Each structure stands twice: as C-alpha cells, then as structure tokens.
C-alpha cells in the first residue's frame, strides 16, 4: 500500500519537478537549433557545446553543494582562474606537470577552506565572504603572475598529456565522460554519504541540525571546500581547453555556473537540489551559448536570453517553495 503511494508520489514529483522541465527544455532548445540551422547539426558543434560545458560544469557541480546548504559561493570563477594561473607559474618555474595539476586543485580547495571558515566559523554572510575572496583570488592571480599571461604546455609536447583528459588525439571529446564521472561521484557524495545528508539538513534547518548534535560548522565548511576543489578542477579544464590564461579574468563565470545550478532546480534558499539538474542546467546554458550564433544572434543576445531563462527558472523555484 505504502509502496504504491510512494510510486505514485515519485511519478508525480518527477513530472512536476524542475529537473524534468529542465530536461524537456534542453531537448526543445537543441531541436530548435537543429531545425533552424543545418550547420548546428554537425558533430563539431556538439564538441564545442561539450567544450563550453567543462569548466562551467565543474564550477556548477561544486557550487551546488554550497547552494544546498543555503549559502552562495561567488568566488569560484576567479578562484578557478587564480589556481590555474598560479599552476602555470609553478610550471614555468619547472615543477613537473602532474604536481602542477595537484597544486591547482589544492589551491582551489584552500580557497574553499577559507570561505568555509569565514562562513561557518566566523558567521560572515556567505555572499559577502565569498565576494571578498572573489576579489582576493582575482588580485592574487595577477600578483603571482606579475600581470603576465601564462601558457600551459601544448598538445604533443611531453607535458601536454593533461589535454587528453578532455579531448583525445583523435578529437574524441572524452571530457564529457570525465565530467560525467565527476557528476556521478558528486551525486553519490550528495545522496549517499553523511556529507550530503548533513549538507541537505543544514540547508533545510541549520539550527535544528545543530540541536540534533551534528557538528554543523564542520559540514558546512566541507561544502565550501568541495566547491573550491571543483573550482580547481575547472581551472585544469579551462587550461586544457584554452592553453593560455590571462591575469585578471574569471569574474562572471561564477554567475554562469550559479545560473546553471538554479536552472537545474536547486533552490537558492537551501535544502533542495540535484547534481543531475545542475548538469542539465549547464548544458542549457552552453547550447544557448553555442547555438545562438548559428541563428545569427550575436553573443549579447545570449546574455539577454540567458537572463530570461534564469528568471523563469527562479520563478519556478519560488512557486515550488510556496507549495511546501
């Protein structure tokens, strides 16, 4: 009896959920571009959609953890660039490439730790704390690189192996599988481990979680560390895709990522969210980004349309919260 109810309920939830709407929207947008433009239907276009999804995808997966706690992490965009640029400087100093990659991820994680301590331990509003580290990361990247751009090793060189993480020699976009693996890993952490359980719990009711004897400061900090680590991974993805990193960039990417998260159905007020939704949200963004030029709309139209999509997504979120 209960099972039947549960099933019906699950079915109803799926149909009504933002995730489901987001998947439909993604398919609809893709079909729309495919019909409108023959050129869009090529595999090259698909590969560039994937390319555009990697670093934003990693950022978005990471920040999903923070957003589910009810917080926000604005620093991910510049942290991504900062860790990549510092990694590049390390490489130019002669560090082996594998160590550089680890350093990039660690720098991201360190920024996350700082964010986590500021928010969880010192009770700074996450918006302000991460706005601060966002500026610090941007400044730090320029300081360390002496306002010079850094160049990562090219494909085919001895240290160019890291590029194969995202695209094989034969141009196969293996990155989509890597992103998929990390998404699955993140989803498992979020849904099947204590980390995830407490992140949801904090986002749903922080005080109640604390009174249940859970060390909320620790788990909240971990959410920010995860976000930072993913920003580091995004830094590697960015370096692999674009090779050259300019100092002082990165601001604005966090908003693309957060928009993807929200479009994917994660609630900005905490307690609700999925990695699957986030990935779909990111793809909606990158299909729009890649597709609009094919129907002769320039990048500024992309901003315009993404803004509208975002507002519609948040409207759904607000309506859903009213129901609960």
């Amino acid at each position, binding site marked *: 009896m209960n099972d039947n109810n*549960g099933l019906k309920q699950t079915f109803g939830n799926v149909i009504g959920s933002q995730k489901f709407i987001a998947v439909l929207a993604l398919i609809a947008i893709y079909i729309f571009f495919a019909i409108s433009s023959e050129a869009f239907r090529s595999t090259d276009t698909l590969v560039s959609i994937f390319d555009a999804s990697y670093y934003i995808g990693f950022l978005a997966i990471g920040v999903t953890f923070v957003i589910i706690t009810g917080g926000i992490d604005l620093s991910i965009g510049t942290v991504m660039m900062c860790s990549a640029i510092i990694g590049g400087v390390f490489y130019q100093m002669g560090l082996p490439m594998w160590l550089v990659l680890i350093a990039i991820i660690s720098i991201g994680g360190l920024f996350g730790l700082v964010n986590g301590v500021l928010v969880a331990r010192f009770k700074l509003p996450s918006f302000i704390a991460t706005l601060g580290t966002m500026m610090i990361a941007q400044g730090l990247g320029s300081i360390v690189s002496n306002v010079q751009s850094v160049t990562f090793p090219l494909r085919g060189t001895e240290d160019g192996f890291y590029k194969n993480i995202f695209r094989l020699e034969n141009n196969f976009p293996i990155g989509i599988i890597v992103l998929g693996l990390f998404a699955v890993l993140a989803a498992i952490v979020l849904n099947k481990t204590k980390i995830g359980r407490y992140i949801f*719990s904090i986002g*749903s*009711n922080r005080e109640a979680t604390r009174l249940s004897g859970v060390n909320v400061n620790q788990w909240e900090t971990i959410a920010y560390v995860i976000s930072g680590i993913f920003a580091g991974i995004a830094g590697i993805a960015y370096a692999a895709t674009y090779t050259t990193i300019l100092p002082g960039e990165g601001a604005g990417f966090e908003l693309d990522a957060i928009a993807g998260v929200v479009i994917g159905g994660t609630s900005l007020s905490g*307690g609700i969210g999925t990695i699957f939704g986030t990935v779909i949200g990111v793809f909606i963004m990158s299909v729009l980004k890649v597709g609009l030029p094919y129907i002769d709309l320039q990048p500024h139209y992309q901003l315009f349309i993404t803004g509208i999509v975002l507002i519609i997504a948040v409207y759904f979120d607000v309506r859903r919260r009213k129901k609960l």
Partner: protein
Amino acid sequence: MERETILEMKDISKSFGVVKALKEVKLELAKGEVHALMGENGAGKSTLVKVLTGIHRKDSGQVIYDGKEVEYKTPKESQDAGISVVHQELNMMNHLTVAQNIFIGRESVKAKVFTDDRAINAKTIELFKMFNMDVNPREKVGNLTVGKQQMVEIIKAVSMDAKVVIFDEPTASLTEKEIDELFKIIEDLRSKGIAIVYISHRMDEIFKITDKITIMRDGEYIGQVNTNETTKDELINMMVGRVVYEDPKQEAEVDENAEVVLSVKNLRSPHVKDVSFDLRKGEILGFSGLMGAGRTEVARLIFGADPKESGEIYINGEKASISKPQDAVDNGIGYLSEDRKQFGIVTGMSVADNVVQPSLKNYVKNLIIDDKRIHEVSEKYVGDLKVKTSSTRQLLRNLSGGNQQKVVIAKWLEHNSDILIFDEPTRGIDVGAKSEIYSLMNELAKEGKSIIMISSELTEILRMSDRIVVMCEGRKVKELPIEEATQEKILHYATARIGGDTLE
C-alpha cells in the same frame, strides 16, 4: 520504592549581559519520575534546559548527572550522555524524510561511507509500531501536519536511548488523540526508569501525568511540590505570586438583537467547507475546535489572506468584496495572527512604528513622516493598554509576548478597526499578562468592537465568549450560546466526524 537521583542541578546562575536569566536555580530529578517544570514565560525554564544540554554555558553552579559532575559544551555531548530534548519550537528539517530526521546525526552507514536509508526506514517503522504512529518513513517531513511533525520529534528524542528526556511544551500543537498517545509514551518511559522533565502551562496535563513539580519565577527557584499534595491555585500562586481565577462566563453580555456587523455566508476553500455565521456588535464570538479544524483558515479567508472558492461576506449589511488583506483592512477588519513573530509585528522596529503601520498614511505630511506625532499617539496607547516598555522607541523584540500582543491590538485600534479577529490571543503569553489581555478584550467589546476569538484552550473559550462556534474538519458543526456551553459539549462536537457518530 526508593528514589534514586539521576540528575541534580545546584545553584545554577546564568546572565546574558546585564540580564540575570537564572539566579541560583536548582532542580533534582529521580529515575522513573515525571517532573514538571512550571513558571510563567520568561521564568527561565528554557534557559535552564539549555544550560543542561550545552546550548548555553552556566556562569556558576553544579550539574551532577549519574553521580558525576558534568558540563556539556555542545548539544551533541549531552545527547551522547543520554539527555535528549523535545524542543518547544519545531526543529525539523522539512526537506528531509521522516526517517532521515529521526536519525540525523546517527545515520546507519554501509561500508563506512554510504548512508543506508533502507536501514533507518526499517528502524523507523519499528519505532512507529511501538508508538502507534502510521506515517511513511520516506515522506518528507514538510508534508506532514504540525501535530504529526511534533510526534516525529518526540519519537526522535525518545529513540535516543536517553536516561533523561525533556519535553518543552510538547502538546501545543497536538490533537487530543495525539496527546493521549504522548501520555502513553511517557508512561512507558517512566516504567523503564527514565526520568522525564515536563514543561507545560496546561494544568490538567500537569496533574494527569507528573509526580513532582518544580516552580520557577523570574529566574529563581520558588519551590518543589508533590503533584498529589498540591492544587491548581497553589501552583498559580507560586508561579505568579497572586491568584488568578479562570471562571467561565455565565451569560452572554451582548443583546440577542444587537445589529449584525459581519455576516459570512457559505464560505468555501480547500480547507473550509461551507461555513456561515453572523457576528454582532459588541460580541465576542469564540471559535473552538481541534488543531486543523479550519478555524485559522476561516479567519484568513475573511481577511483575504487566502483565496476563497466561493462564499460571501457582508459588512454592516453590505456585500464586501475582499480579495486581499488590504481590502479587509479598508473594511475595518483587523487580524491578530496566532504567529505574532511571523505575521503580526515587525520585531526590529520600534513600538511606535508598529502601532502606526497600517495607518501610516495619516502621519505623512508633504511626503515626510511626522515622527513626533507618531510617538505622541503611540504614547497614548502605551498608557491606555498598559504596555510595559521603556519608551515608544523601544524595539518590539525587547518586549515580552503579552506586551507585543498589546502593541498589535493598539495597531488595529489606531486604524479604527471595528471587527477584530484574535487568533490564539494568549498563546505564548504568561499567566499574569493573560488576564490583562482578557480584560482588554472585554473592554473593547463593551466599547462596541466586535471580536472573533479563535482559541484552542477551552477554559479561554468559556471564559471569554458570548457565543461559540465549534468547527471540525473544515465544517461548522455547532453554534452554542454560552449559557449552554460546557467543556464536554464543545469537545463532543469538536470531535464529531462525518460518517462517524451522528451528531445529536
């Protein structure tokens, strides 16, 4: 049987800034004992509990638990030691499932890493069987009724293998049936030798289930009595230092032929089924019923806070179209919500700003707010309603519940509202301030204001109402003149279900 002390708190003192919240308070608790902790709001009961469980640190004094002196620094430490609390406010994670809520912080884990929801669902079903609960452990807590949520919270506390369980006003949102179930749970705990601290304002409950009572007043220990050797009057005396009588009203104080100021016809919404009634000038119309009977929903429909499916509202004989609260306010209706903090007041603003909130436009001259006049007017209300505040500039969050309620009343009076809907007017208000609110309501009725009073306390309904509407499952089941009303009769109708027993 020999009393065996499990917990002793001695000379506990605690200050917040300059405010002394606890002054050398003591509490002694034995195994298998149900021990009531009584006192007006602000007496320090909750603070004492928070000191015990590690939410607050005591300034001085001793806590001896299970033979050892202890000092817990976090709720987790006290919980691990076997002290669990059912908090006064609901402390649930609405987005998590029932089972996830019950086992938060104590998850079953597979392979050291993965949470095992199947295991905690099974454990939850076991627990629910013991307590006659019929709730799906996979249901999201946010989808349960408030009463069910409270039961989940109680079962969570009980499931922790505790030696001491503290209930902080657990019955505020429970139905009669759920309260019975709770009392069974408490009996069961008692027989297992678990010590229980029971904080409540409800005398009948105190006398029904407790063995001993410790009374506090103004952060001080007043005394400890055996429940079977004391009386209600003695307890109230100890709590307030004076006797307050709770006698029911004998007869209606309003003329049967007084003009009808508000007439509600066939009101319908998802939670309200075809409700009609009249409210007369100068009348206090009581709305009684169990939690979830639809009383607040009726009030919200009249006030335009929720959309109605159908039904008409007449004010002074004329049909009024009310689709949003502003329409209701313009028609002279004032609503005093059961949840003051969320819907009734702005805690971060001053007394004066709260008083003029709905009528602010009368205090604007050339786009500038006339602050001086606002404070003069508020000053008058503070005097008339005897609001205890240092000045009209005091922030509302610094006032006690009773005084906050008076400010809400002042707000609607200032707006010249003739119809006042009081939803649980004395919830969370201490005994002394209660009677002040009562006499204020009586005065208002005498001056010709008409009052709808929703209350879950039968004594309050019987004491204040001229006429009583009893609701059940969204329907109005009976209208009783005060002369015919008794607690038993009201309860009879409040529990009359469709398809069950016939009504008369």
